[in-house]
């Protein structure tokens, strides 16, 4: 268990509720395009308007992600990214920021190689607040969900358009922090779902759970952020931010001078209307 006694996720959603707005959840891959630039972006995200930050743990074979986020993983891995480096980034961030929730998102294998017990303890101590694991459905809860919750980490589950009535209870059973509604049956960074279908799904989840709901996949513009923000407590933007990083690389893959500034102003523009 980490030494922080406050639940940063709960207090963030409680603050958002008082401010009558949805939270902006931003995603970046740790170490993209390199460790130093990535940390700079991470440190500036809260003041740009990110209420919660998802940090992708780089993985060579991210099979639920689209080309943008896979490319981000590969850039990171080519420039020193790793699970250890991801935890280092979290530690560095926490030295200056004690309030913004950090959620690690990714695939199980790097954690399995790190050692599950060691990882959940190191992550909690570094200042991680929760985990979103793409390839660990409730059927595999004994692998990481149980040890993570014991270590005091939130276990944020993905609910999808294919999660039927009978599964929804099982999926929500060991969830904490918030519920992540994947708005499309598909991969990250592709098409967008209609607001009406998202609204229906969010109501469905809320009928069975008191947890806040964040909606992600396919949300790229401030209009979408605003629209979904009227339906759910959190709106996740991932690929659009990652794309902004990619577009600010020179032909050799090195960050251009204004990369961090461009990414931060994109986030600021996404946040404008949700505040």
């Amino acid at each position, binding site marked *: 268990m980490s030494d922080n006694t406050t639940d940063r996720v709960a207090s963030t959603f409680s603050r958002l509720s008082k401010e009558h707005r949805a939270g902006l959840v931003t995603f970046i891959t740790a170490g993209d395009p390199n460790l130093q630039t990535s940390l700079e972006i991470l440190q500036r995200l809260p003041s740009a308007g990110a209420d919660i930050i998802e940090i992708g743990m780089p993985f060579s074979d991210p099979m639920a992600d689209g080309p943008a986020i896979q490319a981000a993983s590969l850039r990171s891995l080519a420039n020193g990214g790793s699970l250890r480096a991801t935890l280092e980034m979290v530690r560095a961030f926490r030295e200056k920021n004690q309030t913004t929730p950090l959620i690690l998102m990714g695939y199980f*294998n*790097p954690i399995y190689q790190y050692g599950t017990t060691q990882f959940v303890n190191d992550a909690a101590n570094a200042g991680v607040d929760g985990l979103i694991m793409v390839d660990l*459905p409730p059927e595999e809860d004994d692998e990481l969900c149980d040890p993570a919750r014991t270590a005091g980490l939130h276990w944020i589950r993905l609910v999808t358009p294919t999660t039927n009535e009978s599964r929804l209870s099982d999926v929500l059973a060991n969830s904490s922090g918030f519920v992540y509604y994947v708005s499309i049956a598909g991969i990250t960074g592709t098409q967008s779902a209609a607001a009406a279908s998202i609204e229906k799904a969010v109501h469905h989840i809320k009928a069975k759970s008191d947890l806040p709901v964040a909606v992600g996949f396919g949300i790229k513009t401030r209009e979408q952020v605003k629209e979904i923000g009227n339906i759910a407590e959190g709106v996740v933007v991932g690929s659009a931010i990652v794309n902004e990083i990619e577009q600010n690389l020179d032909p050799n893959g090195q960050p251009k001078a204004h990369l961090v500034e461009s990414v931060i102003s994109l986030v600021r523009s996404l946040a404008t209307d949700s505040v």
Partner: protein
Amino acid sequence: MSLNNTNNPPLESYRSGPDDRGHFGIFGGRFVAETLMPLILELEAAYAEAKNSTSFQADFDYYAAHYIGRPSPLYFAERLTEHLGGAKIYFKRDELNHTGAHKINNTLGQILLAKRMGKTRIIAETGAGQHGVATATVCALFDLPCVVYMGATDIERQAPNVFRMKLLGAEVIPVTSGTGTLKDAMNDALRDWVANVEDTFYIIGTVAGPHPYPMMVRDFQSVIGVETREQIELAEGRLPDALVACIGGGSNAMGLFHPFLDEKVRIIGVEAGGLGVNTDKHAASLTGGHPGVLHGNRTYLLQNDDGQITDAHSISAGLDYPGIGPEHAWLHDQGRVEYVSVTDEEALEAFQLCCRTEGIIPALEPAHALAHVVKLAPEMDREQILVMNLCGRGDKDIFAIAESLGVKI
């Protein structure tokens, strides 16, 4: 790190796996995104129903006999036996199947299941193109649209198979993500599936992936071992002393091995050692990898300390995969099956030996199995019997082999 422990006490049966969560010991499982999980459960239920259905079995048997050409012969390789001067060598000739490899046993079973489930679109991944061709073939036969994901690198190496798939009406999608090989093709097939869950059936080509695939593919391929038992009893009046098969994902090997797992038969799987298992250019997941989670299951994987999957290398595109089926991983740790490796060079030599002594041009994949037979047979008595799975023919490989031998064709 190796969990191999050959001192495990023998189990009563090695054929009882997987458990109801799809585990073979610590291996297997269902490590997939939530979007896919309801489909995986639906598939599991549909397969359980089909497995016990006499009409499903009758359909499978009908097409196996009249379309694939089963049973494939069990052939006594007399000249090779004389040449090696040891055990009697039999070839299980799955290279004589329609489409030229064992892959179609599985695609037939899966497409019959897809039809039964009312699915209207088929996707598959392929490395060398053999599974892609076998999938495109049954899709043509059963009139279902077919999309095959294939690494851009492999498309270049295997142009004839790409053309075959297109002739059969399949759409071949080049995969450029990652390293553009089989593992990336599997990633992209999973991405397609997750986006088309309602109508699409994913025909996985080997005994890997999330449960129930490893079990289901094994069951369909077990026709190889079941026939072999009957045929060797008829020919020799007894079971063989040893079985040898090559392993990439391991479907032909599992098909041959499974019906023999509880018998007193020595069983050997041969991995692709590439330039050598002490180099970083090989595909021997059991010899050179350690347990991890990829593509829906826990198994032995080629990976670095950070859990990043590393590239496999083999002269044979069909063995060029950084993982292995979870049941093989379990049989390895149990010590029930021996797993060895042979190099590209040894496979090439065995390939040429087979051509000259038996008049059979084998695929590069079973040439790996043969390279081990070349080592093993002379150590065995002349009264002993060895069966090798000749799981594919080599027409597809002649360009790669010519290049390796420095010949221009």
